[in-house]
């Protein structure tokens, strides 16, 4: 970091022992940041160290973290999706309606299918109507919010059948045992189910990105669309696949979040797009496209959960989270930009 800030023309990698440390700090800066935050907070606050709190952090990291896995793939392919909050709302209310009216499995399947469908719509609008991704998905965000509101008439939809609505910790399992396990269950009493799902999603995305030819196509399209087109990669189809990946990941998050809350509404995920993109960017994925790090996004999700948990523990209001997310997003990009500028000058 020091070499970067002073604008030193030396490459950090060529300095022997000290260079290796700097190199590792640069390459794994988000991992080091997470470790540092954990150590400092654990030392400062006894409540933070409680297993119960750590479990809570893992749970909180998973909802935005799962969306960030898909978003990493899409940003690698050179696009964004600002409509994820709308997709999450629509998937959530569709699922809640079906779970309450029909059965649980059907509800979950429907959420995933609807998610994939909305991903195809986004991909179509961006690639076939050739509208820049950020503004097209900003428009689609409104469309999905509208659909979510119209579907629910602006109400909250409970996943419980009307006769089963019972609140309070004692009898809440009567609401829907399967969904409740998905949303709030734990393995060995410390690993929340959503976190396990997140780990699996990241594993699958990693395999997709690194081990399939579509993964290579994603990177090729993201780094140079012209070159990708020239070598015969179906650019539009690859982008659409990337939009579907984001939307399906978001749908998975919708299933888990609806399970945790036992209900859903159209605006259940306001600000989700900011959280997700901030996680990906702070994790170290470049907005230029072509390359990305799923490990970084995974760590980024944990990092944001730790920060927001710390803000809660120290009694700083929820409104600060907007400020912190925004500042982290801008500074991460500024550091990237300055770093790449320094390296280019070399």
């Amino acid at each position, binding site marked *: 970091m020091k070499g970067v800030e002073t604008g030193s023309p030396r490459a950090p990698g060529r300095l022997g022992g000290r260079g290796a440390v700097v190199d590792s700090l640069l390459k794994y800066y988000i991992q080091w940041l997470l470790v540092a935050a954990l150590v400092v907070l654990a030392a400062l606050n006894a409540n933070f160290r409680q297993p119960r709190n750590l479990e809570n952090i893992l749970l909180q990291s998973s909802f935005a973290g799962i969306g960030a896995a898909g978003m990493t793939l899409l940003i690698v392919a050179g696009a964004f999706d600002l409509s994820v909050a709308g997709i999450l709302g629509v998937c959530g209310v569709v699922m809640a309606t079906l779970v309450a009216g029909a059965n649980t499995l059907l509800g979950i399947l429907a959420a995933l299918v609807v998610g994939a469908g909305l991903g195809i719509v986004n991909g179509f609008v961006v690639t076939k109507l050739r509208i820049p991704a950020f503004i097209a998905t900003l428009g689609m965000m409104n469309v999905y*919010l509208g659909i979510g509101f119209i579907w629910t008439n602006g109400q909250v939809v409970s996943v419980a059948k009307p006769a089963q609505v019972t609140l309070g910790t004692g009898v809440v399992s009567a609401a829907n045992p399967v969904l409740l396990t998905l949303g709030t269950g734990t393995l060995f009493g410390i690993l929340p189910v959503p976190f396990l799902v997140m780990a699996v999603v990241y594993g699958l995305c990693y395999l997709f990105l690194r081990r399939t030819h579509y993964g290579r196509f994603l990177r090729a399209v993201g780094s140079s669309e012209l070159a990708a087109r020239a070598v015969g990669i179906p650019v539009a189809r690859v982008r659409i696949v990337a939009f579907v990946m984001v939307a399906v990941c978001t749908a998975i998050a919708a299933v888990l979040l609806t399970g945790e809350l036992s209900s859903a509404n159209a605006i259940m995920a306001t600000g989700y797009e900011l959280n997700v993109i901030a996680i990906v960017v702070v994790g170290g994925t470049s907005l230029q496209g072509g390359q990305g790090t799923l490990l970084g996004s995974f760590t980024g999700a944990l990092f944001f959960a730790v920060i927001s948990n710390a803000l809660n523990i120290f009694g700083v209001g929820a409104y*600060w989270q907007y400020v912190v997310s925004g*500042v982290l997003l801008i500074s991460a990009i500024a550091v990237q930009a300055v770093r790449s500028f320094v390296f280019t000058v070399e």
Partner: protein
Amino acid sequence: MKPIDRSDPVGRRRRTATSLRVLQFSESIGVTVLLILVVIAASVTARGFFTYTNITNTVIIASITAVTGFGMTFAIAMGGFDLSVGSVQSMAAITAAALLSGTNVPLAIAGALIVGLAIGLTNGLIISKLRVSPFVATFGMMSIIRGAALLVTRGQSVLITNQPAFAALNNGKMLWIPVPFIIVLVVFAVLYGVLRHTPFGRHVCALGGNRKAAIASGLRIDRITIAVFGMVGLTAGVSGVMLSSQLLIVDGTLGTGFELQTIAISVLGGTSLAGGSGNLVGTLIASLLIATISSALNILKVAAFYQYLYLGLLLVLALYLDTLRRDILAASILNTGNGA
């Protein structure tokens, strides 16, 4: 490709310029025709639409959007955009309301405008000096200012009471014309002059049209960027003042989705997202169009939810038309500007 074109490069260029001007003119015509059709349809179907009160209200709503739309048009002409305008509008409205209780009307207005300008200049500095893309910088700023607005109000509403002079900014009339619309016309006149008749306006378009050429020809792009984003912030501040004088009760959640509306009216009005030109007349007419549709839907008692749907679809449609227009433009330049 007629053979006569080859021997007459000046005439050819003149014809290209003329056809571009015709194209730009026809863009305003298109949205104007749409506006007239919507007004006629609304007058026929929605009882109570074509009344003085309702038309005044519609014009006031359009004015509040249009002012920031003008700033956004500059940003888009420069090849950028600003996602933070909604938060800035809210922050400016809160500032005006808070200052009104302790000071007087001119100070409250000045305070709100300074807040808007300062946030806009900060955006410009982050974009030009830290080399952060407009998307990330203003996206992050949107979140920061939203948080700040909620923090300073502690999530509560701020009331404006007993301020007839301030309220007159909204409900006052000059010769039957509502004051907000007069504000819009003044801002429009100033910005139109800046865009069309000053070096600065040409530089903004040059920067949006071809960034590398603009840098190579020695334009101070950092200054231009900072000035344009400062201007967007200032116009968002003006609309914040107008909004607070309309509502007389403000909070930190105002202005959600405002960025979408202002980008939509700019693009709908004929300013291409590709950058390089701005159509302020189109922005003004498109703001009236969107406000008219909203007003008609309200009178027809269509649930507010549907307005999200229609605004989103309208934006996508406008953007698709923009794509088609760029195709036509590219084709016409290929045909007439060959070798020029």
